[in-house]
């Protein structure tokens, strides 16, 4: 599934006009503790979080993720959006909970990160 297809699936808006929405999603994940995300992060991951600060973008870029999904209506800090634009990292925004997003991804065949 591409990022653009995921957007449609979960009804999310992309907040980053510079982002590449053609990236293939390799796995899904949800966590708000950055060290856990670093332990499990994979290239191509779609990551759900309620964290909104700039380190979220730093982590997603470092792990070469496909996109960050900000759930439950949280909004990125301006610095985060700027960094996401600089790094071309898609930020998908949705009112759904991380659980709902993960259920939808799971039903569509997106797997958890392989160890």
């Amino acid at each position, binding site marked *: 599934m591409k990022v653009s297809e995921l957007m449609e699936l979960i009804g999310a808006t992309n907040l980053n006009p510079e982002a590449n929405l053609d990236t293939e999603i390799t796995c899904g994940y949800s966590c708000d503790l950055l*060290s856990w995300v670093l332990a499990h992060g994979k290239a191509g991951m779609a990551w759900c979080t309620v*964290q909104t600060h700039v380190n979220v973008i730093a982590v997603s870029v*470092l792990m070469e993720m496909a996109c960050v999904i900000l759930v439950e209506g949280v909004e990125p800090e301006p610095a985060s959006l700027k960094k996401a634009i600089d790094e071309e990292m898609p930020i998908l925004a949705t009112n759904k909970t991380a659980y709902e997003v993960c259920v939808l991804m799971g039903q569509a065949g997106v797997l958890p990160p392989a160890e």
Partner: protein
Amino acid sequence: MESTILKNTYEINAGEFQTAGDVSANIKRKLKQIGIGGTVLRRIAVASYEAELNLIIHSHGGKLTLEMTPSSIILTSADVGPGIPDLSKAMQEGYSTASEEARDLGFGAGMGLPNMKRNADGFSIESEVGKGTTIQMRFDVKDA
């Protein structure tokens, strides 16, 4: 001692959350340029990010040094304090003294040092209260 091909030192200031991760991104870019990739690049990126963030969150400031020899990458984190009173505790998963501010940003899971150790091929940590903490990590690289 093997000859050093490359050596870069990056200053990291305490409390600078807004630029956190920039040094690790730089290191990753540099290594990519010289042909390091795949899982070893990923492991170095995770370890350097954790080390960088610990310098920002817990230390009074320090340096991250990247060195390359023909067979390995060495990453060293050295700070000027406050030091760690109980290293075995600090190395445990889940142990954290992170501030409320750091926790609000998603740090403080107590996973950083374990993540560094797990990702490195060699790991050593030394600390003295009042002096500082030095962590050295080695990553073996195969010839391409």
